[in-house]
């Protein structure tokens, strides 16, 4: 789980918060409310998730409940049933 958290955080810092590595990004912070990701950035984030975790994010899954914070992404990936059982075990 820590590994996933770090990967997502790294991606966000490298792409949307470039140079703000000192800024603390809490796991429950809303990307939308904080203006961290814009609409084209969301497409990049989805492409990253698909490539890294080998899943397909369906169009209908592009909703804040699934993607609007680090915690929500982790929970979403879990629901998608990909690859974590080993990591957690």
């Amino acid at each position, binding site marked *: 789980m820590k590994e996933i958290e770090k990967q997502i955080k790294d991606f966000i810092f490298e792409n949307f918060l470039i*140079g703000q590595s000192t800024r603390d990004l809490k796991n429950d912070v809303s990307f*939308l409310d904080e203006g961290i990701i814009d*609409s084209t950035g*969301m497409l990049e984030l989805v492409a990253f998730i698909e490539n890294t975790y080998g899943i397909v994010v369906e169009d209908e899954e592009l909703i804040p409940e699934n993607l609007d914070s680090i915690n929500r992404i982790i929970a979403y990936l879990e629901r998608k049933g990909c690859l974590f059982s080993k990591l957690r075990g």
Partner: protein
Amino acid sequence: MLLQDFLTESTERFPDKVAVILRGHRLTYGELERRANRLAWALIDLGVKRGERVAVFLDNSLESVIALFGILKAGAVFVILSAAAKAAKVEYILSHCGARVLISHCNKHEVLRNLKLPGLVKIMIGEDEAGQSPPDVSWSQVMTAGAADHCPPRRNIDLDLAALIYTSGSTADPKGVMLTHLNMVSAATSIISYLKNTPDDIIMNVLPLSFDYGLYQVLMAVKFGGTVVLEKSFVYPYAVIDKMIRERVSGFPLVPTIAAILLQLESLKNYTFSSLRYITNTGGALPESHISRLRDLFPKVAIYSMYGLTECKRVSYLPPEELDRRPNSVGRPMPNVEAFIVDEQGNEIDEPGRIGELVVRGSNVMRGYWQDPEETARVLRPGRYPGDVVLYTGDYFKMDEEGYLFFVGRKDDLIKTRGERVSPREVENVLHQIDGVLEALVIGVPDDLLGQAVKAFIMLQEGKMLSEKEIIAYCMDKLEFFMVPKFVEFLTEFPRTATGKIDRRAMAMREERLNSLFANKV
């Protein structure tokens, strides 16, 4: 008529009808009117005088709608800052327009923390967390302090300013477009007439209110007594689509980037937008292929291609029934507006197909740029009749035999990205502040999603090393996201003009050549 009369009149007609919907919250006309009145009295009590500026720095929210009408009811001028603006820009605009009061939210604390504007009164929304600077006045205090619910007496006439809208121009600093009540009422009235809006219309607005296209969605809906569904952004397209269906949205304003994202959603074809009546596009032309795909997706929906600029809000629209015949046209002037094309000497061109600058005449044309007589004189010039003033748009156009307008290009080098105008000089200014940058040049390059993408060319000082990431990081800190270069290229020299200046045109042409080379290979 004054702009705030839109609200008063609709409140009289539909006191219990929902005017604004945001994240499940529904505000009726009656409630909007009462809250705007309370804010107006609070501003008057704070000493805000007729014509003084009150700034709003908020995400799209119920409060931002209440704020703009409250400010107008106090006889003041509203200035809506982009919610994405960074500290330096916020400070620049607040001090440039001489704002007396700022209405903002505690979530903007980081940006506002180091403001050095001693005379500025802050009205803050939201819970103040410990350690943050306390607001001068809290929003909840304004809304509940037993203030009068009735409208303050009118202080304005329609020649008074209603708003300053800051927009990028050819200079490094943003310019404040001065709009009178007459300007804005005229524009809203013309647009409503060609969109044939009725009180039954429900508008989905994902565009920021700092952008005139987003702002007018609210103003117009309030004028025709409809409902506007406000969203903070288009980051989660399906959340928006879901709401469009649930709220039975009938009008959906787009910019090209939103259209491009929509068209990438494969399952969109499984949805039925039975209540959707029209889609509008402005802020850049839609590629022909996007228009035809939009038509396939929304077969019964009227699609309006439009053209305008903040300085007069809107110039023209293409009647939807003309879209098949001339998909690349932005149509003809809207009601009560005249537009014509002139040559370099200012003579009117009536030959079809000949390119010249578009000139606009109408009561929607701005008063000028705030405290910038020079720039004002450059774009507002004498017209063909005595005493007449017309707007030179800086855009090249041509006309066909039937008078339909076709956009050709910008006279200056403003970049149009994500439906926003970006001044290359504003970005270059920031690049030049970076230690190690000797010279920088910014141009727009074609981009499928953004329309144009911002590209920076940089020449470093000898012995200095900087990476693309470091450049972008610096810009992210100083500029709104849409101005931040998407591409950075380092050069060891620039093409120069005879006078030694960087040759902007030559660089743009070099990019075009590279692009077409690349396009041929793929």
